[in-house]
């Protein structure tokens, strides 16, 4: 019964789509959640590829970011997904690979351009097979209104103490809201709050791997302290930040009403467009001057191949091109803030993007702690982190309680933590 209805659905969608692929040209469709990048794909990336590879046509067909996973899974199950699949990092893509929806592509020539760390997000746990070409990572930090800082005579902070002194000073002056962040959409509190400042406390990869191996617990001080810091931000956020959504925060900052924006580097191109003041960026502050610094340099986007594509050769050609230095430079420069994971050096023109990427030299990179392996069970650690971070930021839950809730949830199904 289920099979026949599925077939009927399939037939209905195919009838709609037939008549497109009549010419001998192979046409590739890219599934993606990056609907913000539509014009860049259409005007820069795809023409560059098509110029080099006559006979292959590429279409970029994005869906909304929050719906992407659901839409993609349904399309793959129904057999109507595009030839190329933009890959979320870690388990979401790994499960697609295990279900046979993605092809292994570690034998592509240009895969040699990527380090193991870059490939880790799209490889099997043993690292033997890779199923997506790494495209970009995003770096977390704080973007600030440089004009406002100058006006108030403050320097970007380096240590935690300086950071709170800066916030206090902006608050006393009263012209600006010290920091633009809300608790309503939850993910900001987790992504741009907890995992932004956290690596300095749990020492980046060291803490992340210790959590996976079970040597550290989320209730250990180095994991609770970032929550305490987050709770201490509350007095410096705008009125009613409990109901402030992510676009509200972006607008507050680009309209020049807030001085600091806890950010991911993907904001760079948006802010460059919208803000008419000078922008600067500083890395997450360290606890004491001279401490080693850690940044969240999160592998965020890759691209792989639908295992059921009819144009496998063309798709592989495209993926190989994505692994090339040419693509890395085109992509990084059209989308400042999405940093190439390629081992080739990529020159970037945008000063803010340069500032972000310069932290890689002095600080140690890590990825978001919940993404690899430990978000496989129920309750899902990363979803819980959203909720708890937002609760802590709203003052509805104490940092200790929040950490305990996360630890209990994780220990409930993850053996090394039991």
């Amino acid at each position, binding site marked *: 019964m289920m099979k026949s209805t599925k077939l009927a659905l399939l037939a209905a969608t195919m009838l709609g789509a037939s008549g497109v692929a009549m010419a001998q040209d192979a046409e590739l469709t890219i599934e993606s959640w990056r609907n913000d990048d539509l014009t860049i794909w259409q005007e820069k990336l795809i023409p560059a590829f098509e110029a080099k590879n006559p006979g292959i046509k590429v279409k970029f067909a994005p869906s909304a970011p*929050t719906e992407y996973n659901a839409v993609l899974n349904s399309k793959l199950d129904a057999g109507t997904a595009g030839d190329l699949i933009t890959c979320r990092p*870690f388990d*979401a893509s790994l499960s697609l690979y295990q279900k046979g929806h993605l092809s292994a592509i570690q034998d592509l020539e240009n895969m040699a351009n990527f380090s193991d760390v870059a490939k880790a997000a799209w490889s099997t746990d043993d690292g033997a097979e890779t199923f997506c070409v790494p495209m970009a990572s995003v770096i977390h930090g704080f973007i600030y209104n440089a004009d406002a800082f100058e006006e108030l005579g403050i320097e970007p902070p380096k240590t935690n103490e300086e950071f709170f002194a800066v916030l206090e000073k902006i608050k006393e002056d009263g012209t600006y809201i010290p920091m633009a962040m809300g608790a*309503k959409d939850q993910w900001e509190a987790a992504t741009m709050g907890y995992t932004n400042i956290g690596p300095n406390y749990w020492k980046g990869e060291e803490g992340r791997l210790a959590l996976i191996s079970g040597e550290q617990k989320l209730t250990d001080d180095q994991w609770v302290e970032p929550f305490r810091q987050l709770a201490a931000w509350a007095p410096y956020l705008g009125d*009613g930040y409990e109901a402030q959504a992510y676009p*509200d925060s972006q607008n507050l900052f680009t309209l020049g009403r807030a001085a600091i924006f806890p950010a991911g580097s993907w904001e760079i191109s948006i802010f460059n467009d919208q803000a008419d003041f000078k922008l600067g960026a500083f890395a997450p502050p360290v606890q004491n001057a001279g401490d080693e610094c850690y940044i969240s340099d999160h592998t965020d986007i890759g691209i792989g191949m639908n295992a059921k594509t009819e144009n496998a050769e063309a798709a592989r050609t495209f993926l190989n091109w994505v692994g090339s230095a040419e693509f890395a430079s085109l992509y990084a420069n059209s989308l400042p803030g999405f940093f190439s994971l390629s081992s080739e050096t990529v020159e970037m023109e945008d000063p803010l993007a340069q500032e972000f990427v310069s932290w890689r030299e002095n600080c140690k990179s890590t990825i978001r702690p919940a993404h690899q392996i430990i978000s496989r069970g129920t309750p899902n650690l990363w979803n819980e982190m959203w*909720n708890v971070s937002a609760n802590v930021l709203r003052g509805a839950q104490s940092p200790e309680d929040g950490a305990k809730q996360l630890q209990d949830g994780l220990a409930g199904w993850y053996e090394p933590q039991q």
Partner: protein
Amino acid sequence: MAQATKKPIRWHIAVFLAPAVLIYTAIMIIPLFSTLQLAMYSDVENSQVYVGLQNFRALFGDPQWSDQFWNALKNNTWFFIVHMIVQNPIGILLAALLSSPRLRMRSFYRTAIFIPTILSFVIAGFAWKLILSPLWGVAPNLLDMVGLKSLFQPWLGKEAYALTTLALISVWQFVGIPMMLIYAALLSIPDELLEAAECDGITGMSQFWKVKLPLILPAIGIISILTFVGNFNAFDLIYATQGALAGPDFSTDILGTFMFRTFFGFQLQLGDPNLGAAIATAMFVIILIGVSIYLFGIQRRLRRYQF
């Protein structure tokens, strides 16, 4: 001529019923049973295996899921109660006012109150999100103008208020439906009856309570059951304003959002269509029980009047 007495097969009945039966079967009955079937299966090493009631055992027995389920059911019940005590009385009141013969510009009011009903949830949700926004909303300014700024709260961001606020937004959007149904019921009351009541000295408020209200009770029953079904199937408004995690701290999570999150997955949480189907089945059973109670317990006892 003996054959004339044999009744011919009445093909036209089947032919006339066919389109509705076929379409209803294809888009309602088959999916309903597929959902029930899906809830009995589970994904084991990428193939669907029959597991009986295991998904339901997880849903009600495993605290990871059952806590969320009861939380969603509790919120959903509150969502329904707010509709019953706010939306329907206001709907009846508006209908009574509209049917008053001395009211001018009646059709204007009728249209104005009904318009939100035809708006998309996304538009209503987004508009209210902006109205209530502590940053750019008009709500804080309006309260400020009457000197009540201190009453303003970021309602959608507080656990204590968010669900009630959303329920009231939904009431605002759908109050037009009970109003229209009851308005129609009120108009169908024959004038002779009201004149007779007036002869007996029953006028004004007591006429409404003693004559009109008993006559529109069946309509109120229908509205209650429509509200019940609509509320326990609700999803769109919460999803559009609060997202799939139904924040803050799951205080606005109702069965619809819980089902969506489980079925399709969210961020790193992978979708589990089987458990999602189990939740959908539970929703179906809840609605079925509610409707049955109404049909057998209430509707049959309602007294109807023939004019």
